[in-house]
């Protein structure tokens, strides 16, 4: 277990920032999760454009809030994913109680880096600005802001510049695994001793251009357009697909040594994690997980954490609201080598915020750590009509928010490309 590691090899979470469809800011997010507040709303534009799915999770109030965070000069070159990432990163920085970042314009924080991922990237900028102008022969009229908004690393590059980060600043991308993968990569970077702190998480914009491809695949839910708050239905028998979400969740990872040195508040410790792929072999494919890979990933995370499977109190699942949910729960059971009634308590945050693609892991890791730190497990809504294949697991599925003294939580994310990531958090004890 982690007592065999030195304080410089142990990694803790000392700050978080959240821009979610149902809340912005940690206290509001805690309340929304506890109270089962849905962030899914009807989006008129999707109806106008004849989408099958006409609901989505979009953070509210950002249009006005963004002016409190960014200058007009910066906003000129910030699409929705960059704005979400910027707000979440600044909030995370402040929550970690680090020094003011805009006091000295020559100051670089050489001890902090960032891995902030995205799944799709700046498709809103491409669709609204770049493609129409280029196709009209007006490339000269694009201006200077297209590259910084459409390069894959747009989100991390903007955050690095705002905060003056001098460590590694990069964007990872592995579809819906992205945010959780970022956390594990940042954890490994700190453990290697190369850096004291890393911001880690994901961001995804709000745009019909981002969501259209999924609607075309018929993987988005289309039967609940009139009742948006009922639309995202992980583990339900009547789900008709996932509901797209957006936003950003970013966590400050820090060596325990650095956190103790500066007396930082510690939310939780990252015990370990694993990242792998199922190889798109067996029953795996570009869009379906190979269960062998998923189970190896979960077991790998448990082993890397130095714990026994039975020590996991809670699972925050990937649980998207597709027919893959029963398979996922069965994978948890098999990986943890127990019977259906022996699995940890399990919930799905997407039931409240939708599936935020590359931001999902970040938004849900913040939810996971908040639950450990503040002693609750939020209800996974909209599965009152549990999928028949999940009946044996019913006693372990948390449908209504409860107080909790859970110590260890496993969070997993899975994505197109048959990629998997699983991270294990433990509540911090002074």
């Amino acid at each position: 277990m982690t007592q065999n590691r030195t304080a410089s090899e142990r990694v803790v979470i000392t700050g978080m920032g959240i821009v979610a469809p149902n809340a912005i800011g940690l206290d509001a997010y805690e309340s929304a999760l506890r109270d089962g507040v849905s962030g899914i709303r009807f989006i008129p534009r999707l109806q106008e454009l004849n989408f099958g799915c006409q609901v989505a999770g979009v953070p509210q109030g950002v249009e006005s809030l963004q002016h409190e965070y960014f200058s007009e000069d910066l906003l000129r070159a910030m699409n929705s994913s960059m704005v979400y990432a910027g707000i979440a990163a600044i909030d995370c920085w402040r929550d970690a109680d680090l020094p003011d970042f805009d006091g000295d314009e020559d100051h670089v924080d050489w001890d902090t880096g960032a891995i902030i991922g995205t799944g799709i990237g700046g498709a809103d900028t491409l669709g609204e600005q770049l493609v129409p102008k280029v196709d009209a022969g007006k490339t000269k009229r694009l201006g200077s802001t297209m590259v910084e908004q459409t390069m894959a690393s747009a989100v991390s590059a903007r955050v690095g510049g705002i905060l003056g980060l001098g460590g590694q600043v990069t964007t990872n991308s592995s579809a819906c695994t992205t945010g959780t993968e970022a956390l594990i990569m940042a954890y490994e970077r700190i453990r290697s001793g190369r850096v004291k702190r890393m911001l880690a998480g994901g961001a995804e914009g709000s745009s019909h251009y981002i969501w259209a491809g999924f609607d075309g695949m018929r993987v988005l839910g289309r039967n609940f357009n009139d009742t948006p708050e009922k639309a995202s239905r992980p583990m339900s028998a009547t789900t008709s697909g996932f509901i797209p979400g957006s936003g950003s969740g970013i966590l400050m990872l820090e060596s325990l040594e650095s956190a103790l040195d500066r007396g930082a508040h510690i939310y939780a410790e990252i015990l370990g994690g694993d990242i792998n792929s199922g190889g798109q072999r067996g029953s795996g494919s570009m869009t379906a997980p190979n269960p062998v890979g998923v189970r190896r990933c979960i077991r790998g995370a448990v082993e890397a954490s130095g714990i026994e499977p039975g020590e996991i109190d809670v699972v925050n699942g990937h649980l998207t609201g597709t027919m893959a949910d029963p398979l996922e729960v069965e994978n948890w059971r098999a990986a943890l080598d127990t019977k259906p009634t022996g699995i940890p308590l399990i919930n799905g945050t997407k039931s409240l915020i939708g599936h935020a693609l590359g931001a999902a892991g970040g938004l849900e890791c913040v939810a996971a750590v908040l639950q450990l730190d503040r002693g609750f497990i939020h209800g996974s809504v909209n599965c009152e009509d549990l999928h028949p294949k999940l009946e044996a697991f019913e006693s372990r599925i948390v449908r209504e928010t409860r107080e909790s003294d859970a110590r260890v939580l496993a969070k997993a994310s899975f994505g197109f490309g048959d990629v998997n990531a699983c991270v294990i958090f433990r509540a911090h004890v002074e």
Partner: protein
Amino acid sequence: MDRTEVYNKVVEIIGPFAKDPEALSKADEKTNILTDLKVNSARLVDIILDFEDKFDIEIDDDAADQIMTLGDAVDKIVEIKG
């Protein structure tokens, strides 16, 4: 449009790009757009596009390259507008 009018409009267009608002308030025709007003050099392209839109003119790349100060911008715009 007289020279003062053009100058005032140029300052108004550059305003949102200037990272040093104090320098902008004290600016005159000799003020350097990049070094004095601390405008990000990549954004010069956007300023030229705004000049084109607001003054209804076209500024070719060679002409744009000659604009260093607020006065240079005014000269070029007055020259093109004729």
